[in-house]
């Protein structure tokens, strides 16, 4: 029975930490607010919220909550007892009395129960909770049963396979090789209303696909301060697919183990439906490597946020429209629990850190490669423009790189027959003089992409050529960005008529449809 338990228990959490973690996993602001209002109202008698660092577990009022729990819980009592036994087994080893600690678990359980009894309160995207409920209540396997909210969310996990970066320095994707690559022939072998199967083994599940708005964007000429011209001879506005942006969902991850199969599946399904509703990506690759088309190829998807990329000819500022978005379900960053650190350590430290190994697994990598091959061949996409989101994502306000950090390490460029973009100059720096802040530096430390210093050297050279001090040159580039960026925003305003079409779209399944029952 104990074999499925995590080796190390998560650090003890106080009530508010648990609340915060659950809240973090609720993407919809209204639902999040409902959840927070509910838990804060329920707990208002504890007067914890406003006070300094009150450890709720030590306040007396906890007992009232415990009573509440017993009243509401009946159906799950048996499981709770089991929890208790196991919990005791673990806690006894620690020097603290387990009783206090056990209360944390009760508190999480209360959350589960209150949340559960509130019914529609949480949609299944926080499937962790829902699945945990299902698993504890519905399954007859002891191992699965043990899975509680806390464990489900917080434990560390050991993925079967991890993303490995092979840093052998070999550059792939020189032009000759690239064209050879694009000579690959991939064709569709079978197509039903739910799947497309291709000759390279790729299978795309199309069941959930939704429409968005047609691609429509501007290519900015490289090495020029000119705004795109809209005459007929120019490429603008464009609607072709210029590249691929790779994302990680950074969502909650269950242990990649046979007994977790149903939880993993439920969670993915909820996530897919949510992403379809938000029209977040074109493709999604679940943890078993299954490929889903979420938004049709000819339409934009809202995956890029503010981002910058460039090839030899053009600069792209609207990657939602210009690029395909492929999302791997998985994460490569974890939230740091800073409560244990000394006060001094906390100052200005990021609250996320790289995980030892990315959770993206072999099956996913393989599917991602097949999908990449198809897209590149079908749309004639240059290897230059196949990039992890983190390398393109920027904070357009503060002119900083790395706004999103998904896939910022370990992307298998080699396996994908792409040149290693971590080592190459970043267009946001070379074209627009972006920089990074301390926060970024703290997260990456020595693992900062070599491409950054490369870009900065290029920047210095360019400044020298122009006879300008670097800061001034940077400033000029920054201004150019702002001008381009604002101009583009202005153009996009006029796409309102297209946006209205959204109303006619086969839009996502309502929340209730996929809340786990």
């Amino acid at each position: 029975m104990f074999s499925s338990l995590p080796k190390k228990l998560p650090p003890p959490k106080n009530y508010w930490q648990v609340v915060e973690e659950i809240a973090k996993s609720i993407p919809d602001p209204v639902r999040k607010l409902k959840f927070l209002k509910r838990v804060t109202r329920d707990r208002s008698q504890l007067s914890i919220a406003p006070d300094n660092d009150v450890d709720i577990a030590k306040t007396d009022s906890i007992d009232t909550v415990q009573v509440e729990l017993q009243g509401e819980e009946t159906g799950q009592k048996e499981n709770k007892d089991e929890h208790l036994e196991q919990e005791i087994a673990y806690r006894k080893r620690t020097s603290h009395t387990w009783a206090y600690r056990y209360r944390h678990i009760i508190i999480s359980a209360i959350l589960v129960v209150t949340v559960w009894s509130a019914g529609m309160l949480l949609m299944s995207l926080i499937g962790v909770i829902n699945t945990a409920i299902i698993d504890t209540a519905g399954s007859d396997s002891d191992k699965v049963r043990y899975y509680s909210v806390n464990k489900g969310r917080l434990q560390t996990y050991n993925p079967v396979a991890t993303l490995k970066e092979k840093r052998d320095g070999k550059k792939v994707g020189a032009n000759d090789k690239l064209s050879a690559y694009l000579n690959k022939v991939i064709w569709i072998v079978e197509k039903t209303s739910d799947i497309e199967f291709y000759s390279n083994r790729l299978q795309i599940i199309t069941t959930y696909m939704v429409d968005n708005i047609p691609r429509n964007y501007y290519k900015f000429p490289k090495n020029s301060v000119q705004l795109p011209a809209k005459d007929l001879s120019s490429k603008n506005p464009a609607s072709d697919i210029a590249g691929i942006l790779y994302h990680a969902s950074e969502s909650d991850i269950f242990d990649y183990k046979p007994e977790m199969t149903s939880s993993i599946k439920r969670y993915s399904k909820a996530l897919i439906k949510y992403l379809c509703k938000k029209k977040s990506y074109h493709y999604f690759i679940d943890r078993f490597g299954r490929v889903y088309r979420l938004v049709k190829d000819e339409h934009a998807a809202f995956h890029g946020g503010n981002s910058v990329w460039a090839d030899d000819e053009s600069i792209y500022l609207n990657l939602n429209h210009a690029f395909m978005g492929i999302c791997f379900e998985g994460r490569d960053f974890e939230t740091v629990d800073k409560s244990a650190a000394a006060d001094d350590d906390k100052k200005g430290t990021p609250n996320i850190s790289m995980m030892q190994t990315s959770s993206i697994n072999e099956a996913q990598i393989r599917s991602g490669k097949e999908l990449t091959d198809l897209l590149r061949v079908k749309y004639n996409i240059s290897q230059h423009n196949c990039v992890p989101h983190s390398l393109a994502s920027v904070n357009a306000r503060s002119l900083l790189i790395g706004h999103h950090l998904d896939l910022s390490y370990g992307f298998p460029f080699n396996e994908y027959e792409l040149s290693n973009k971590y080592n190459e100059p970043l267009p946001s720096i070379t074209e627009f003089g972006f920089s990074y802040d301390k926060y970024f530096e703290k997260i990456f430390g020595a693992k900062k992409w070599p491409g950054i210093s490369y870009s900065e050297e290029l920047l210095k050279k360019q400044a020298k050529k122009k006879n300008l001090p670097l800061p001034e040159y940077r400033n000029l580039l920054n201004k150019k960005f702002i001008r381009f960026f604002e101009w583009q925003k202005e153009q996009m305003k006029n796409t309102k008529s297209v946006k209205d079409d959204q109303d006619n779209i086969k839009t996502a399944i309502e929340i209730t449809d996929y809340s786990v029952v």
Partner: protein
Amino acid sequence: MVAKGKNSKKEEDKITQAVEQILKAPEDEDNLSENAIGVDVGTSKIVVSVKGKGEELFSSQLNAFIAVDYSKFTQGILKQNKISHLKIGDSLIVYGDGAAVFANMLNSETKRPMRKGLLNPKEENAIEIIKAIIDDLVDPTKASDAPLCFSIPGVPKDFETDIIYHETILRRHLNEKGFQSRSINEGLAVVFSELGKENFTGIGISAGGGLCNVCLSYLSIPHISFSIQKGGDYIDNAVSSITGEVSTRVRDIKENEFDLLTKPENDIEDALNIYYDDLIISLVRALKESISQTTKIPKVGAPIPIVLSGGTAKPNGFRDRFEIALKEDGFPLEISEVRMAEDPLNATTKGALIAAMYEG
């Protein structure tokens, strides 16, 4: 002031022209799909949001009016073109966006039913006008108990006023129209719309026309909220009084070509810089004071973000100046970042909508 007496031919032309211009402005014809409504009752603008199918839909009207003398001709043309107006006594009151166009044509200035975030007690028709503007934006025929949340300012830091009166008048009116209405502190509304990712923990600031509103929230619970009586109007008036330029022109420059990061090139820009600094420093000082006076600030583990919104925060560089002021001789809380709201002019109404939806 508008000339008294009968409308001259020339004036009639101007009015016709004004009408045409208003009609050219795009109309909001989107239908609502869910019935919750968010309303940002700002000193200079009222912004309403509803949930459309994919995202929020916004509509707004200037919170302004202009009175012209009543004449059959004018009223006829207003009616014919469906331009919002009221007849009060011997005057026709054109309100909302139309007011600005009229003022411009007639070479006059609009007036406001609100002042510094609250109903203006000196404006005798203020209540009628603001009700009319709101009714134009939120169709009362569709009310039938729809949850509605409207923003109210925080208690002014430097000055006690009665917000209750303002709040009650608006709430009563909306409830009479059939809404289920409540109010929300403007700063908190900004937190709701912008700090979802941070679990509604952080500081929301709305720098508007009449006021700057501030709210520090921890997990959606407000711990500090206040307002300072400086905003865009203050800047316009102050700059106008030291440069001699009329405030409409000052506002025009401020809203269109002004950049807080570039070197001022003339007196007006110079003065704008000075008063922006003044506003920012007052804001940061008030925030510091409030925090140090509050004993019950939760000790949040992680540094918290500050998010800036509102028209006054829009000029390029506002965020940077704010951050600099914040860092000057220390700030009592650890701040993770100072960032601009995604959509600064709609942050308040978006937050009000979220509040209406979660209660609704």
